[in-house]
């Protein structure tokens, strides 16, 4: 990478849509051979920038230079298009649903005039690599999310472009498919010496990039290598438990800008860089509340981004929860599922699922696409009758009390089912009307929702004009209009900026802790799952792992070992060797390697040896706390391995 020359130069880029300025003054340089990341929430300007580089969108000011050609006209753009591959946003949306996997690939290849022999060779190789070869003749519309994503990647890279521009390729895909995707991308890029520009809304993917730019509201907030970005905001992450939690948060918020409740844990970002003094100042700001299980870690990139955003912007109005008469600590069960089964023909979508959610608890249901999460929620909501088993929601039997259940639950979906042409207040009043609230009740509830969700000042704004984060809080408010005891959230925070997301979770923890609402969440964001008190991981219709986030991490640590992060100057070739040596969970993160080891100190010499054998010099080696994504991927990979063994066993 020493000879790296910039192949894309962007200077003072400005893009306007009518009066709306989408991107204002972005500079960017992409070097040959690197994976460059654009990170930011929806509406940050990532897509506009990528489309302009791909030559499929005009821009208003500045200069975009690709492979030395200034892209200022359709003609200029045409000149570089043979060297580019562009994957637009939207999972599988640019593919043709009625065409088979193979026909899709063939179309892209022929459009790019790939010679037939090369097409046959590449198609075979790509399909094998992505494990799609069994599905050659399957219509694209019948593929799972992860498979669509991989097919999209193949179609974009089939003509072996020098620069691949991938717009949010991992949005809406489960963590396993996501990790798979990154591995394949890294391998392809290395093999062919390609360069990639990739955007993502998942902050925790930032470590995957060689270099990155963090965009917010059309501006670059930070850019550089992950380490350089991290260095912009020196500080530490302190994690501990403290009770009462709400009081502790209130005290901490007077001193610290980033205070998060993750289940029973508190997560505080401090700008102190010395471990001892960081702990010291936390303890003193808590007063008479004693923190326990204190732990200090390096901050994640997401914490850094939030810190950077907070520096720029005024802090959003924090949720001023009007104190309603706090419910007496009610630890009755809010949701109970007992051996739930659901068959679709011969296919068992949900297989003997049991769990319990107490009032005031936040429960997360995780799983890959198609694992059965949605079916479970539909059955609990009374929208779908179960084939077997029983369930109670807020005291009502889901089989007999369909209507009663709907009055006791709130439901908020990914799509935020709001009426965009109504104002905030009109939306809330509409939902109050739907649930049959009378006039005085509506007025009190409206007031409560506006202050709870931080919507004061937005009452008469049109919903379509609201930023995503505010829209999401409005959707939450509407789901709470009838004071449900149980709240279902289906992927609630896709596309929301990190500050907005934290604000949202603040509200949820207040709802759970102070109002005693039971909350059930499904999500692909593993950083979101960290907020839950309890998690259940579903695989092939069954719950395969259950517990609090820290319990789940501990289980994996005892089973497979601790997470070791290596900084290697040539990491890619070592992956195979490390896997052959028996290390679990080997994965590439940009310039770093992750693996699991029971004895990191004891294994260190062996690891260095293996890396050296594949011409990689280990620059540093250290242990890191496991993330929930690591847990998820480890669990699912293990189960898939078992399944494969079983099927091959049967075949043999």
């Amino acid at each position, binding site marked *: 990478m020493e000879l790296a020359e910039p192949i894309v130069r962007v200077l003072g880029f400005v893009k306007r849509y009518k009066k709306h300025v989408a991107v204002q003054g972005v500079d960017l340089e992409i070097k040959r051979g690197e994976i460059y990341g654009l990170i930011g929430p929806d509406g940050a300007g990532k897509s506009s920038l990528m489309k302009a580089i791909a030559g499929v969108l005009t821009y208003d000011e500045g200069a975009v230079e690709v492979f030395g050609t200034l892209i200022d006209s359709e003609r200029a753009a045409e000149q570089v298009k043979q060297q580019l591959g562009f994957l637009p946003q*939207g999972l599988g949306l640019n593919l043709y649903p009625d065409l088979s996997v193979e026909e899709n690939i063939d179309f892209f290849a022929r*459009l790019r005039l790939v010679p037939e022999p090369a097409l046959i060779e590449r198609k075979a190789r790509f399909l094998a690599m992505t494990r799609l070869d069994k599905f050659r003749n399957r219509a694209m519309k019948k593929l799972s999310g992860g498979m669509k994503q991989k097919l999209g990647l193949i179609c974009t890279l089939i003509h072996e472009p020098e620069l691949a521009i991938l717009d949010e390729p991992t949005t809406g895909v489960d963590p396993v498919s996501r990790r798979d995707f990154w591995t394949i991308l890294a391998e392809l890029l290395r093999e062919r010496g390609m360069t990639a520009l990739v955007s993502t809304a998942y902050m925790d993917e930032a470590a995957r990039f060689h270099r990155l730019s963090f965009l917010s509201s059309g501006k670059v907030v930070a850019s550089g290598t992950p380490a350089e970005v991290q260095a912009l905001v020196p500080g530490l992450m302190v994690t501990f438990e403290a009770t009462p939690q709400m009081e502790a948060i209130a005290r901490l918020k007077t001193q610290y800008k980033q205070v998060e409740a993750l289940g029973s844990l508190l997560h505080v970002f401090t700008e102190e860089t010395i471990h001892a003094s960081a702990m010291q100042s936390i303890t003193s700001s808590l007063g008479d509340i004693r923190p326990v299980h204190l732990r200090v870690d390096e901050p994640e990139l997401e914490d850094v981004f939030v810190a950077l955003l907070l520096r720029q912007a005024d802090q959003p109005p924090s949720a001023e929860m009007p104190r309603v008469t706090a419910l007496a600590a009610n630890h009755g069960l809010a949701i109970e599922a007992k051996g739930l089964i659901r068959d679709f023909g011969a296919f068992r979508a949900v297989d003997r699922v049991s769990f319990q959610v107490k009032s005031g608890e936040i429960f997360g249901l995780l799983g890959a696409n198609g694992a059965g999460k949605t079916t479970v929620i539909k059955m609990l909501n009374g929208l779908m009758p179960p084939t077997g088993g029983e369930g109670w929601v807020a005291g009502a039997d889901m089989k007999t009390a369909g209507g009663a259940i709907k009055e006791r639950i709130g439901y908020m979906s990914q799509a935020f089912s709001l009426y965009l042409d109504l104002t905030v207040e009109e939306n809330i009043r509409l939902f109050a009307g739907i649930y049959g609230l009378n006039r005085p009740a509506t007025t009190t509830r409206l007031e409560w929702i506006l202050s709870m969700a931080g919507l004061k000042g937005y009452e008469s704004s049109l919903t379509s004009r609201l930023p995503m984060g505010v829209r999401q809080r409005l959707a939450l408010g509407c789901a709470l209009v009838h004071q449900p005891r149980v709240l279902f959230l289906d992927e609630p925070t896709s596309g929301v900026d990190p500050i907005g997301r934290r604000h949202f979770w603040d509200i949820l923890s207040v709802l759970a802790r102070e109002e005693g609402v039971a909350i059930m969440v499904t999500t692909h964001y593993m950083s979101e799952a960290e907020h839950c008190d309890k998690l259940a991981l579903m695989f092939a219709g069954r719950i395969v792992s259950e517990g609090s986030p820290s319990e789940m991490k501990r289980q994996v640590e005892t089973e497979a070992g601790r997470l070791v992060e290596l900084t290697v100057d040539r990491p890619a070739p070592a992956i195979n060797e490390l896997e052959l040596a028996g290390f679990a969970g080997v994965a590439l993160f940009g310039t770093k390697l992750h693996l699991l080891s029971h004895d990191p100190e004891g294994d260190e010499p062996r690891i260095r040896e293996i890396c050296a054998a594949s011409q990689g010099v280990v620059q540093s080696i250290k242990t890191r706390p496991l993330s929930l994504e690591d847990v998820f991927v480890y669990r699912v990979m293990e189960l898939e391995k078992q399944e494969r063994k079983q099927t091959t066993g049967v075949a043999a």
Partner: protein
Amino acid sequence: MNFRRIKAVAFKEWRETVRDRIFLLLAFLLPVLWMLVFGYGLVLDVEHIPLVVVDRDHSALSRDYLYRFTESRYFDFKGSLTSETEADAWLLSGKARAVIVVPEKFGERLLAGQPAHVQTLIDGTFPLRTDITKGYVLAINSALSGELLADYVARTRGLSREQAKTLVQPIRLEVRYLYNEEVRSAWSIVPALIMFSLMLAPPLLTALGIVREKETGSIYNIYSSTVSKIEFLTGKLTPYVAISFVNALLLWLLATLWFQVPFKGSFGLFLLSSLIFVLTSTGIGLLVSLMVSTQVAALIITMVLCTLPTILFSGLIVPVSSLSPGAQVQAHLFPGMYYTNIVRGTFLKGVGMNVLWADMLALALYAALLRLVAYRLFTKRPRS
């Protein structure tokens, strides 16, 4: 121009169209359906008018007079009533549209050489039908009057019936209907319906096909690739032109075999001009698709743009020559009129290129112009 890329686009488009059941149904069933529905629905022949009679006379002459109405194919005899009030009720309920009232002493007066008055009541809610009904009544009435007069002359002058007829009616009208010999409106409407169907379905298919790609985002595959604008437009339109051309054939078969409309002209000429017309109408769809970004918008705009002018100004119902001068100008601006001339010409008149060349040229110019505008409008690097 690279043929391989055009082929790739065309094949992809064809496969998608064939596999999308609803789209396929839309492509092949809609034109046939339109022809069947309008072919039966737009028949403007006024026949089988429900008729009741009130005979107060009950003489041989009155029976003979009424017999001529009740036996005519233009009237459907619904019954004999005793009073006008009863007849009013029939008219009000719509069970009858015409009433003939023969007064008392009708036969007596006629035989006595005195004039007789027959009252006719006609439902005036549909002026066009009313006029035609009145025409039938007048014609039947004058025929009988003429015969009575001739009989009288024959009797008084001692001439033969033929001689008396010549004397009474010295000028006789000989009418020969040309082209549509039986004056069946189906013969006139059905060929024009080929135009109507080919004016609606191809633009709709084309517009939806292209906007669908815009809506899903797959158009970015085209934008970001090296396929040229001409290659893309050619490849994309080819399947729709082919489908529409096949439809032209199907509609022709439907017209000649099902509706039994005679085809007198050159089949080759019909095919050639249909191809040109299909190129024009798909061009309209292409133009619409470049200006909108959702399928719903494409659907509505295409329907409005194609249906109204086609019904009003293409000669489908009213001949262009009998439109007001302003409407005639508008008629010349839409391609439907030229093709109407061609289909009616080839079906009914059997005329050839020497008469129809101007219409064909107009269509060809139209097709070329639409493509040129579309080419200028289409950009692989849009503003948003």
